[in-house]
C-alpha cells in the first residue's frame, strides 16, 4: 500500500495543478482481502488493492468534481483540469459553502494493527478450515466470510486543511445450516487476534441444531428479545431517517421540530461517538471537519441532530463533523452510533418474558413509509419461542412491519453488553440487545 507521504504528495501536486480558487483532494485507498466459503469449502478468495482520488473545486461560486484511480502526473493534471472545466459550466450558486481551513483533530488510538494488515490468505484459510472441519463432523453446512482490510483516508485542501487516518478491521461471519435450518453469528473487530472463528461458529452451529423441527406460529403482536444484530437494522434506518439536519430543515423527518420532546422510552440513549472504545470511527468527516460526540437521544428525549457545513449554515449553527463527500444530496449522517448499554443480560430478558420470541437478526429490512419511519423485514437464522421465562422451541420465520418510534417506545429492557455490529450505513454501530413489547409481525413463512 502507498504510505502517507506518497499520498500527501499526490494531494499536494493536484492542488498545485488546479487553477480553481479552492481545491479539495479526497483520497481513499484500501487493501482488502476476503475468503468466502460455502458447503464447507472456500469458494471465493479475493485480494483487492485500489486507490480512489477525488478532486472538488470551487471557482466563482461554481463547483466541479472529478475522480480517478490513476496516479501518474499527466492523469493527476487531467483530473484537476476536468474538475475545473466542470465548474466553469455551472451556474453560479451563492449557497456553496467555502472549504474549511486548518482543523485540529482528536487522536483515536489503536486504529491500525499490523497483524491485521498482514493477515494472509493462508491464515484465513487455516482458521476457516478449523470451522469447516467441525461443521463436517456435525453434518452441518457452513457458509460465511473471513475478511481483513486496511483502509486509509486522506483529505486536504488549498486552504491548509490536512486530515489523514489509516485503520484496519476484520470480520468473520458464518451461517451454519442443518436440514435447511440455519443459525448465524458474526464478529466485527479492529484487530484480527480478537476473532476466534471456532467460538463464533459454535454459536451459529448451536442455533442451527436448536432450530430443528420448527413449529408454525401466527403473525401478530409479540414481545421480542432482540440480539444486537437484530437491533442494528433499526439503528441504521434511524441514522438515515431521523438524525440528519437536512431532513429536519426540509420537514421530511418525523422528528422535525421535536428537539426537546420525548420520542422514545426513558431507557433509550443514543449518541454518535467515533471515539467510543470499540467503535471504528475516524476523527474527521468528509469535509475535513472534526467529528464531534453528539448526544442524539437522552433518556428518550430528542436532544440533537447532526450537521455538515451546508446545513449548519442554513440553521445558523456549527458543523458537528458529520458531512458526507460533497456535493451531497443526502445531507449529513451519523456514522458511529452508540446505543447506550443498560443493565440486563439476554438471559434476564428471556427469564422475564411470559410469552415472546428470541430473534437472531433480520433480513432485507427496508423502509415502507419514510415519514412515519415504518420499516419491514424478515426474521432470519434463528427464531425461538419464549414461554414462561424459557426458550421453548424453534419457530418459523415471520415478516415484521413496524414503525421505528413504536419499537423504541416499547423497549422494556436494554442489554448490558454492547458490541460493534456491522451495519448497512457507516462503519459499524455499537449495539446492545433489547427487549421490546408489542412488536408487530404481519405475515409468516413455512420455514
Amino acid at each position, binding site marked *: 500500500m502507498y504510505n502517507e507521504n506518497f499520498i500527501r504528495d499526490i494531494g499536494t501536486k493536484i492542488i498545485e495543478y488546479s487553477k480553481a480558487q479552492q481545491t479539495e483532494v479526497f483520497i481513499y485507498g484500501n487493501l482488502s482481502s476476503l475468503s468466502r466459503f460455502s458447503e464447507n469449502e472456500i469458494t471465493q*478468495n479475493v485480494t483487492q488493492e*485500489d486507490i480512489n482520488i477525488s478532486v472538488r473545486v470551487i471557482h466563482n461560486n461554481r463547483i466541479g468534481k*472529478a475522480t480517478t484511480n490513476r496516479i501518474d502526473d499527466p492523469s493527476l493534471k487531467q483530473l484537476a483540469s476536468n474538475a475545473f472545466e466542470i465548474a466553469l459550466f455551472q451556474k453560479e450558486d451563492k449557497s456553496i459553502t467555502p472549504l474549511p481551513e486548518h482543523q485540529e483533530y482528536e487522536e483515536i488510538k489503536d486504529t491500525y494493527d499490523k497483524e491485521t494488515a498482514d493477515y*494472509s490468505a*493462508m491464515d484465513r484459510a487455516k482458521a476457516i478450515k478449523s470451522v469447516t472441519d467441525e461443521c463436517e463432523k456435525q453434518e452441518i*453446512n457452513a457458509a460465511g466470510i473471513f475478511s481483513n482490510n486496511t483502509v486509509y483516508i486522506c483529505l486536504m485542501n488549498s486552504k491548509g486543511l490536512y486530515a489523514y487516518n489509516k485503520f484496519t478491521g476484520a470480520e468473520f461471519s458464518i451461517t451454519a445450516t442443518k436440514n435447511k435450518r440455519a443459525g448465524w453469528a458474526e464478529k466485527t473487530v479492529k484487530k484480527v487476534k480478537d476473532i476466534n472463528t471456532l467460538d463464533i461458529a459454535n454459536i451459529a452451529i448451536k442455533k442451527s441444531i436448536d432450530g430443528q423441527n420448527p413449529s408454525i406460529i401466527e*403473525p401478530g403482536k409479540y414481545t421480542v428479545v432482540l440480539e444486537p444484530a437484530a437491533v442494528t437494522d433499526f439503528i441504521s434506518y434511524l441514522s438515515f431517517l431521523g438524525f440528519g439536519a437536512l431532513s429536519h430543515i426540509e420537514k421530511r423527518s418525523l422528528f422535525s421540530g421535536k428537539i426537546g420532546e420525548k420520542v422514545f422510552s426513558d431507557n433509550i440513549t443514543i449518541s454518535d461517538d467515533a471515539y467510543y472504545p470499540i467503535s471504528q470511527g475516524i476523527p474527521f468527516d468528509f469535509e475535513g471537519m472534526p467529528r464531534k460526540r453528539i448526544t442524539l437521544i437522552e433518556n428518550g428525549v430528542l436532544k440533537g441532530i447532526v450537521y455538515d457545513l451546508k446545513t449548519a449554515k442554513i440553521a445558523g449553527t456549527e458543523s458537528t463533523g458529520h458531512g458526507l463527500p460533497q456535493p451531497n444530496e443526502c445531507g449529513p449522517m451519523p456514522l458511529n452510533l452508540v446505543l447506550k448499554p443498560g443493565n440486563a443480560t439476554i438471559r434476564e430478558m428471556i427469564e422475564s418474558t411470559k410469552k415472546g420470541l428470541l430473534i437472531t437478526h433480520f433480513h432485507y429490512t427496508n423502509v*415502507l413509509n419514510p*415519514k412515519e419511519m415504518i420499516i419491514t423485514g424478515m426474521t432470519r437464522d434463528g427464531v425461538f419461542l419464549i414461554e414462561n421465562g424459557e426458550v421453548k422451541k424453534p419457530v418459523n420465520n415471520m*415478516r415484521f412491519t413496524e414503525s421505528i418510534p413504536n419499537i423504541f417506545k416499547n423497549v422494556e429492557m436494554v442489554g448490558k453488553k454492547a458490541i460493534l455490529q456491522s451495519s448497512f450505513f457507516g462503519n459499524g454501530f455499537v449495539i446492545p440487545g433489547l427487549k421490546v413489547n408489542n412488536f408487530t409481525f404481519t405475515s409468516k413463512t413455512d420455514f
Partner: protein
Amino acid sequence: MRKFTDLALNTAKIVGASYCDIRIINTEYENIKTRNGEIGSINKSETMGYGIRVIIDGAWGFASSSLMTKEGIENTTRKAIDTGKASALTIRNRIKLVPEPVYEDKWTTPYIIDPFNIKLKDKLDLLYAADEILRKDKRIVIATGNLGFLREHQWFANTEGSFIEQILLRSGAGISATAIGDDVQIRSYPTSFGGQYMSMGYEMVESLKLLDNAERVRDEAIALTTADQCPPGKKDLILGTGQLGLQIHESVGHATELDRVLGMEANYAGTSFATIEKLNNFKYGASKVNLVADSTIPGGLATIGYDDDGVRAQRWHIVKNGILSGYSTSRELAHTIRENRSRGSNRADGYNNIPIIRITNLSLVPGDWTLEDLISDTEDGIYMDTNRSWSIDQRRLNFQFGTEIAWEIRNGKKGRMLRNANYQGITPEFWNSCDAICDEKHWQLIGVPNCGKGQPGQRAEMSHGCSPARFRNIKIGVGQKGNTSGQV
C-alpha cells in the same frame, strides 16, 4: 493490451495454474444530479485496472490492482495464485469449467449518440428546466434530476485462447418530486431511484421527454399527499411496469441464480426455494407465465457480447408455460444441473471483483390484453405502479413491496388515487395467481442499475421487460390501520 494479458496468463501458467483469465477494464463515468435548482452531485470519473482469476490446485484465487505495469501484473498474478493455494486447503470438489468455444472478437453496445460528446451545459440545462417545472408549486420541497452515463472498455483473455474486447455503454435519466402536505410523498419519472437506465446512447435520454412529464410528476406528488390511504384487505392487483419489473427481479431473477440455489450466498443474500430438483417440474406460475432470460435483447442493461467467463450471450427460458425451466449459470456451476454449457451469466462489478452469477435481462413475455380491457374486466382491484420499497425473505418466498402511486379499480373503472400502497405475497402463490398479461404494445424494459449481491459487495445492472399484469386476490395495505394482522 495483449502484452499485459499475455504476461498475466504466462505468469500463471509458469507457477502451475490450470486456468487463468484476466480482465482489464477502463471505465468512464459521468453522473449529474440536481436538487432544488442546485448541483446535488456531479462527478466525472475514470478508472483503469485489472482482475486476475486463477484455478490452482483445483481452487479459485483472485487478485486485482490498478497498477498497470509489468511488475504490477506479475505481483497481482502471484497474489491470485497465493489466494488460490489457500482456497485449496479446504476444497472438497475441484473446480470444473464446462467447455466454451475460444473467441477472438470485439463487441460494442449499439448506440446513436455518444453521451460523452454532449456538452455538460446541455445536460445541466435539461435538468434545470425540469427542476423549474417541478418546483413551480411551493408544496414541492425536493425536486431532483439525474443523468448518468457509463462506458466500460473491457479486454478479456484466458489461457484457453480467448481474447475478447467489449465496449459497453449505458445511459440513464430521471426526475422526481417530493411534496409535503398531510404526508410526505414522492413521485418519479420514468422510474424511481434515479430513473430509467438502458444500454443505449444519449438518444435514450431524448426519448424520455423529461420536460413533457415534469408537470404530471409534480401534480401527482402533490395529489398523493392528500390521497386516501391504500385500504387493507385482499383485492385483485394490477401491477404497472414500474413495479412489475422489480417483482420479476426479486421473486424470479434472484431465486433462479444457480449460486444462490446451491447455497453459495447462504451467509448474505440468502438461498432459494427454487432448488434444482424442481427444474422442469415445479409450477412456478400460471401457465400463461413465461419468463425469458436474454443477454442479447437490444437496450437491456445486461446486454453484452460475452460474460466475464468469456461465454457468448444467450437467450433461454427461466419459466416456460408456468414451469421452472432454467437457471442463470456460470462455467463453474452449469454441470450441477447437468448442462454442458454455461448460460453466460457470470459477471463482475468492475475490474476489482471476481465474477459471480448475476441475473441477466429477464422479461415477462407479453400476453394479449389491452390495459383498458384489463381494467374494465376488474371488479374490485388496485392498480399499483412505480416501486418505492422492497423486501423479500432469504429464500425468495415472502415478499412485501410498496409503490409510489396506486388507483382503486371498482366495477371496471379506475377511480380514486391512493397513497402508501403496498402488497404482500408468497412467490409461487403470487405468480400462479396471474391471470392476465397485457400485450406487446404495453411492454417495456425497466432497468435495474443497482442490484447488490456478494461479499465483498458487488453492483450489477440488468433490465426486466414486462407489460402490466393482473394477480388475483392479493393481500394489500399491510401496516395500514384496520389491518387484521397487526396495526402500526
